[in-house]
């Protein structure tokens, strides 16, 4: 069942939240042994919350737009009293002392959190293999990765353990696993969703967003979590967009740009799916426009300087003093070193060192300063193109889901799987991946829709059309 159907059923009294939760918990019990999407499951709490929702419905109350809907949270989102590990040894067992704003909004809307999902450690990775607690498998083929870093949240939805989940997207960490697992994944405009209670990786790039099996479910979820929050100073003043009411407005007259930079390097079958998606949009009245964005070719290199630089600063807080792991030593400096050396995995160490290097004296101008200017260049390039098109259509990923272990030894090879998703984060724009059939090895593939800041309504309208046309 979709989240839209569950919420409608629970609010109207034709479905019990308790039954919706049991369905989810049964699916988790049956499936998660093979998939390992979850790091924690809150069966008792979820049952109690569902019972309370059913009581409220029985007494005539409306529990809200997500009444009784089971949801899973990426394990970098704080949930009061529950463990938030970021799939890292350094936060293993650490219990958040407060709720993230998105969690507050979910619970106020009647959603029921059933558990926390696996991820690449501190959201650094593209396969969920960087989890300190073991990898997640792709539910469509358990020899393949689910993508990352929000691989657990994508896999939980793809295997119908929950209808919706939340992830975070710093360079593609929602859209890439959504594409690999065959689900919808949305990276909202920077600032649309509060980051309060999201453990920071690269603060100028991080954004929380939904996973779902249908476009409508992501629209419903984003409407609930979006909107200004005074506890996040980078939160936009704009209200949550009205997505569901425009979902079926179609794409008549919408100008959709195709640029080589968002297709080149993609596998033959993925490139073919983009062409078919473009045809589907034109058949529904959209106007196709060929554009060029050569500046995007520098996005990946710039990102892998900027994101590690921000990470090296953000992760300085893990020092063994106030929370998380401490490895004892004779003095404070040695304790800091021992704690971080034992607590962080290789990818996190790699990025901390890369960022420290890019920021260090002698290299700052050549690397960090240059990358910041590339960011400006990419923003200006998007601004130029969005004068003549409303949206861009391209690939989400260059390949379908790769095999577990295939890229672990070669970080640069792993980073290349984010090549089409990264420019959006650099610009602070929204983008989504919507499933659009299968490509190589009969594995699912998503196509990516990108738009300027706060263009979510148009993105969802186009995604809805592609969902209906995915059988082409």
């Amino acid at each position, binding site marked *: 069942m979709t989240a839209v159907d569950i919420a409608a059923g629970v609010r109207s009294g034709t479905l019990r939240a308790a039954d919706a939760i049991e369905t989810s918990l049964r699916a988790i019990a049956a499936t998660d042994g093979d998939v390992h999407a979850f790091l924690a499951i809150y069966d008792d709490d979820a049952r109690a919350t569902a019972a309370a929702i059913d009581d409220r419905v029985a007494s005539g109350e409306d529990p809200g737009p997500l009444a009784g809907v089971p949801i899973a949270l990426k394990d970098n989102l704080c949930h009061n009293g529950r463990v938030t590990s970021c799939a890292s040894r350094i936060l293993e067992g650490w219990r958040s002392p407060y709720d993230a704003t998105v969690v507050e909004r979910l619970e106020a809307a009647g959603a029921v959190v059933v558990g926390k999902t696996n991820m690449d450690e501190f959201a650094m990775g593209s396969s969920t293999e960087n989890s300190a607690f073991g990898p997640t498998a792709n539910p469509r083929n358990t020899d393949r990765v689910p993508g990352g870093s929000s691989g657990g949240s994508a896999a939980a939805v793809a295997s119908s353990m929950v209808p919706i989940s939340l992830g975070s997207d710093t360079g593609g960490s929602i859209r890439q696993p959504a594409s690999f697992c065959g689900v919808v994944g949305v990276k909202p405009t920077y600032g649309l969703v509060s980051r309060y209670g999201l453990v920071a990786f690269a603060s100028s790039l991080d954004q929380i967003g939904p996973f779902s099996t249908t476009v409508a479910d992501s629209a419903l979820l984003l409407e609930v979590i979006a909107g200004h929050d005074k506890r996040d100073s980078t939160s936009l003043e704009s209200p949550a967009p009205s997505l569901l009411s425009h979902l079926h407005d179609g794409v008549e007259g919408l100008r959709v740009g195709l640029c080589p930079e968002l297709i080149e390097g993609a596998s033959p079958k993925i490139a073919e799916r983009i062409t078919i998606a473009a045809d589907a949009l034109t058949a529904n009245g959209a106007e196709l426009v060929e554009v060029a964005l050569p500046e995007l070719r520098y996005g990946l290199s*710039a990102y892998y300087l900027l994101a590690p630089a921000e990470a090296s600063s953000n992760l300085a807080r893990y020092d063994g003093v106030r929370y998380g792991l401490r490895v004892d030593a004779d003095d404070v400096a040695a304790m800091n070193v021992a704690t971080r050396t034992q607590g962080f995995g290789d990818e996190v160490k790699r990025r901390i060192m890369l960022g420290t290097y890019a920021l260090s004296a002698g290299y700052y101008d050549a690397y960090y300063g240059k990358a910041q200017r590339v960011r400006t260049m990419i923003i200006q390039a998007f601004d130029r193109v969005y004068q003549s098109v409303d949206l861009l259509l391209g690939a989400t990923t260059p390949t379908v889901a790769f095999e577990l272990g295939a890229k672990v030894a070669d970080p640069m090879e792993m980073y290349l799987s984010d090549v089409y998703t990264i420019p959006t984060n650099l610009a602070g724009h929204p983008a989504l991946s919507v499933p659009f059939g299968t490509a190589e090895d009969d594995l699912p593939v998503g196509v990516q829709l990108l738009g300027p800041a706060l263009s979510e309504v148009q993105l969802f309208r186009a995604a809805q059309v592609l969902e209906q046309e995915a059988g082409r």
Partner: protein
Amino acid sequence: MSEPSPISAADVVHVATLARLELTAGEVEMFTEQLASILGHAADVAALDLEGLEPTAHPLELLNVVRPDVVQASLDRPVVLAAAPKVLDDRFAVPRIVGEEP
């Protein structure tokens, strides 16, 4: 601006020290090779002429955000200290800071 020279094993040891990380000899070798590969990709960025472009640190125009100067509750001390690895007299406890014998 000239392109920076490739990262060396000594550079990796230096940044690890700055970042409060300790590496084994094998790790130094592995990370040097991997960071060189990643920075090799970044050479295209380092080589770009971007004169006249301002750096972007953040996608939004960052302004000071202030709220009315009203006292609000923060997390209770016991809640915060409960998460600490070691506590002494309602404070975070750490090993000695100066390097002399007590």
